[in-house]
């Protein structure tokens, strides 16, 4: 039984995954900033600290309220906001020393892919990771994920969140923009920037925000923003798929919850005869289960860390992590 602790940004989560990769418990609490404001790292970390004990306790108790002792403790070591990462790492270290169980550091982005692969039964996919922290197209070669394409500036999650903030729409921004977009129908011309397999979203954000300030129609703007931003990514994904010739396309991360994005990436996969593996919506956003799932796989590959070396790494690229458990059986 592996306990996973997520605390990279706005969510504190704890989850148990058993030896057969089944999610036994998954308890999460998310900090929501006021409308029009972004996540303040200190305020988010205060929220995480205030809910941590309750979340862990709930995740470790069974239905008849007896408590389960995990065999392994996994914590999200990065990337993310420093103050937030340190909360989860502290809880992980404490539990590991108290229960005398091994501690496993987990890369939050790798974990997004691991849980998606577990649930959707993907083996060796072209992985599309879209969230507030990542917008990357990856393939697994040798021991590591290799970045085939990525954003050169802000992530897709950033783009939607920052636009939602400008428009005074509530967090999470992706959901708010998506709701508004269903009411829009006129395509407004916005910058479309694809550089090879890379995308760049900052020009798109500026143009959309400027148009908003000039009293542009919000529904049309949300619609056009989604169409343009998702088309850019879909084009990069299609290009990468043709070049890497993978037969599976995995879609993971918080923005993977977007119905329109699922539709578009699914259409790209279908067009090229690849199977489409979108993460179920309830596991798309940050959660304890992803850390538990990835931690279990890492532990089975012999990856552990001593308490004195259990640092957090706020900046940690996907292609710097050894992931020997892929391709999956």
């Amino acid at each position: 039984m592996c306990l996973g602790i997520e605390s990279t940004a706005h969510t504190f989560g704890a989850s148990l995954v058993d030896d057969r990769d089944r999610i036994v418990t998954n308890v999460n609490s998310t900090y929501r900033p006021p409308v029009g404001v972004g996540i303040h790292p200190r305020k988010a970390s205060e929220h995480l600290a205030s809910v941590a004990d309750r979340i862990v306790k709930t995740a470790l108790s069974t239905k008849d309220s007896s408590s389960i002792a995990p065999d392994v403790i996994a914590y999200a070591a990065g990337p993310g906001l420093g103050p937030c990462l340190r909360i989860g790492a502290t809880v992980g270290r404490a539990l590991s020393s108290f229960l005398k169980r091994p501690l496993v550091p987990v890369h939050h982005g790798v974990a997004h892919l691991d849980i998606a692969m577990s649930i959707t039964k993907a083996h060796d996919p072209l992985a599309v990771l879209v969230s507030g922290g990542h917008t990357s197209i990856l393939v697994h070669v040798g021991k590591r994920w290799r970045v085939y394409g990525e954003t050169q500036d802000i992530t897709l999650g950033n783009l939607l969140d920052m636009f939602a903030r400008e428009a005074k729409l509530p967090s999470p921004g992706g959901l708010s923009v998506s709701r508004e977009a269903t009411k829009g129908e006129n395509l407004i011309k916005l910058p479309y920037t694809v550089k090879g397999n890379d995308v760049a979203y900052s020009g798109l954000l500026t143009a959309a925000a400027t148009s908003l300030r000039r009293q542009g129609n919000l529904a049309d703007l949300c619609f056009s923003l989604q169409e343009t931003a998702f088309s850019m990514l879909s084009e990069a994904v299609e290009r990468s798929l043709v070049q890497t010739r993978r037969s599976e396309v995995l879609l993971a991360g918080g923005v993977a919850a977007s119905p329109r994005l699922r539709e578009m990436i699914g259409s790209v996969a279908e067009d090229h005869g690849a199977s489409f593996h979108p993460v179920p919506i309830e596991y798309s956003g940050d959660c304890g289960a992803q850390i538990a799932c990835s931690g279990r796989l890492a532990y089975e590959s012999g990856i552990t860390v001593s308490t004195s070396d259990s640092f957090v790494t706020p900046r940690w690229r996907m292609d710097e992590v050894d992931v020997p458990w892929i391709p999956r059986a």
Partner: protein
Amino acid sequence: MDTASLTSTPLHRGAEADLSLATIGPWKVVVKRRVRKKYRNPILDERIRHDRTISEASVIHEAKTAGARVPSIVGVDIENNAIVMTHLAGTVARESLDDMGKSEAQKLLRSIGEQIGLLHTAGIVHGDLTTSNVIVSPFGAPFIVDFGMSRRSVEPEDRGVDLHLLKRSIIASHRQNPASMMNSMIRGYEKTTGKKVASSTWRKAREIARRGRYFAIR
């Protein structure tokens, strides 16, 4: 030029266009038709296909005039978003590179570098440089193809993107040592651009790589 009446056989299905083979007089030609993308909004889709068809045809022609090894433009069919160009015989570098010995691979990379240098000197950036977009002729000379993402630019930024993309494609798709492959490429590049442009472009390419998420100097 009307490509709808040409009899052609399918050749290759790319990411954004279908390539097919046809014969016009004594020439074997390739018809590159940008197909409609189901995932894309129809207005956005038409705009992108139209703009890229025109830009690609004119850039290829300009590259040829500058002496780079690229296909020759035979005609453009704007109504059908299609370009007709001469067919190139050879192998795709992505396929052949891994089968080559180290010195042969280095020689090819040097030669690819020279070609990229010629394009950059002519004020053209490719925009999608990968080993899949290089065709190696039976005599071992590399031809650069697929100018769908290319633009006219002399900015170090855009030139840097070209080298960055090529490097990443070598890291992601090939087992050859990326550092030594890129060294050979740069030597060739320097031959056609001169030292000054070569060093500023390479500096920019490394800077662009660091722009990716979560890069830290360790």
